[in-house]
């Protein structure tokens, strides 16, 4: 039983970070209709920036903050490149982000090398939780993810910037009439995507061996979670991420094997087949 709980909690923590990356996909897609495959790159980059700052003497808290902000800035940059020409078809934009993610791998290797980032957890030590021993950092990831999702929901429902981002996505013409800049809303969404990916990376890096090559795996897991939410629903994305994380952790825990990426791909394919009609309708509605 305690082994089960251990796998469950560590799966939830990994899943929470998938969900954060997935939320980045959702925010960017909701506003710009672009599937942004640099979401994993944001996480790896933020994880590495933070680890390198902290191993070089930057205090905890500040190091993590800089890592997340750096990911947000890179998100803004990716948005600026992807949205540079108005009317770029979404699938062309997707290929651009895929290309940029490969560039991201090269940049991370050039800056930090191709080995995993050193583990510098924000909170160290082991918690005794329901008779299960688990790193505090893992519980932190779950907590932060839950808070982040509440903040995202409040942002879109209660703030004018969030409303304007929804407005720009649902009726660009009317948005321009009232003075909402479609481009700025798109850039804002990419920045938020960067921040969310950054949060995931900064928290996950100390627990998982994040290297330059982790980005695509993370992106796939996040994307699978986002597809679970139809690329529009943050809450279903959270659920999808958690399910993925727990499933991966169980398989690994019971020594069936380490199949996290394969699981993500399988879930993605299943959801896409089951929900093909719903996803198709959305595309048509645009």
């Amino acid at each position, binding site marked *: 039983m305690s082994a089960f709980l251990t796998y469950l909690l560590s799966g939830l923590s990994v899943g929470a970070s998938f969900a954060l990356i997935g939320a980045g996909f959702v925010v960017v897609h909701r506003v710009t209709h672009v599937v942004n495959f640099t979401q994993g790159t944001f996480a790896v980059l933020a994880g590495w920036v933070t680890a390198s700052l902290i191993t070089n003497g930057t205090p905890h808290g500040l190091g993590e903050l800089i890592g997340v902000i750096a990911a947000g800035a890179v998100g803004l940059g990716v948005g600026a490149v992807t949205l540079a020409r108005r009317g770029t078809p979404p699938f062309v934009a997707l290929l651009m982000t895929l290309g940029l993610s490969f560039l991201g791998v090269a940049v991370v290797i050039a800056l930090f090398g191709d080995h995993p980032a050193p583990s510098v957890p924000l909170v160290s030590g082991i918690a005794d939780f329901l008779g299960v021993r688990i790193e505090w950092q893992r519980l932190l990831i779950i907590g932060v993810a839950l808070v982040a999702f509440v903040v995202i929901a409040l942002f879109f429902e209660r703030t004018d910037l969030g*409303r304007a981002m929804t407005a720009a996505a*649902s009726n660009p013409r*009317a948005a321009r009439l009232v003075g*909402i800049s479609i481009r700025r809303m798109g850039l804002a969404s990419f920045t938020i995507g960067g921040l969310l990916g950054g949060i995931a990376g900064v928290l996950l890096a100390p627990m998982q061996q994040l290297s330059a090559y982790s980005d695509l795996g993370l992106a796939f897991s996040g994307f699978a979670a986002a597809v679970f939410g139809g690329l529009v629903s943050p809450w279903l994305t959270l659920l999808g991420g958690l399910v993925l994380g727990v499933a991966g952790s169980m398989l690994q825990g019971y020594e069936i094997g380490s199949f996290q990426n394969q699981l993500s791909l399988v879930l993605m394919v299943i959801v896409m087949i089951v929900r093909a009609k719903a996803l198709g309708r959305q595309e048509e509605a645009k």
Partner: protein
Amino acid sequence: MLRITDLVVRYGAATAVDGVSLEIADGEMVALVGPNGAGKSSLVNAVSGLVKPAAGRIEIDGRSAQVPEGRQMFPDLSVDDNLRMGAWRLSRNARDTARIYELLPELVPLRRRRAGLLSGGQQQMVSIGRALMARPELLLVDELSLGLAPLVTEKLVAHLRRINQESGTTILLIEQEVALAFEICARAYVLEAGRVVASGDTATLAGDKALAAIYFGDLSTGAEEDER
């Protein structure tokens, strides 16, 4: 309030507005009529800044806002949020929607409803409210009655009149129902193929048999034409 001089709007090789000049004084309510494709929407879109004129000048004395053709809701947002977005250009304090519910009380029970789920008439009301949120001195209405029941149109017309008379908002109204447009507005411009072909008092224009026959059918038998 609005002065347009030799305005030209082109889309690629097609010329939508071909040297139009018009002038609207403060507090006036002026109709812009003409057949489909005459360039009416292009003209107001140029005034709103949605399309860039190829030539000519547009001078506006104050803020303008547009009630666009097809209502153009933000379908996923509530009525209240649609209204708030109308004041996006203004400061946060200017985004209070209470004023609009006083002007358009029909919207009060709908404020939490998603705009995409409303009827056409309700959406048109939201669209007018959203434009008024920008506190415009000049209101551009692109097709008021299109697709709406006569009773609904009547209500909207009453609101527009009150907005015009009580707050002195200048209104430029595009309306495909010429009889209705002429009834509401004292003055009109008639556009055809991107040019002004007639303008003046609506009473005089309506009495111009030749013009009426060419552009709108006979106004006196407008009702019969609707039944066809």
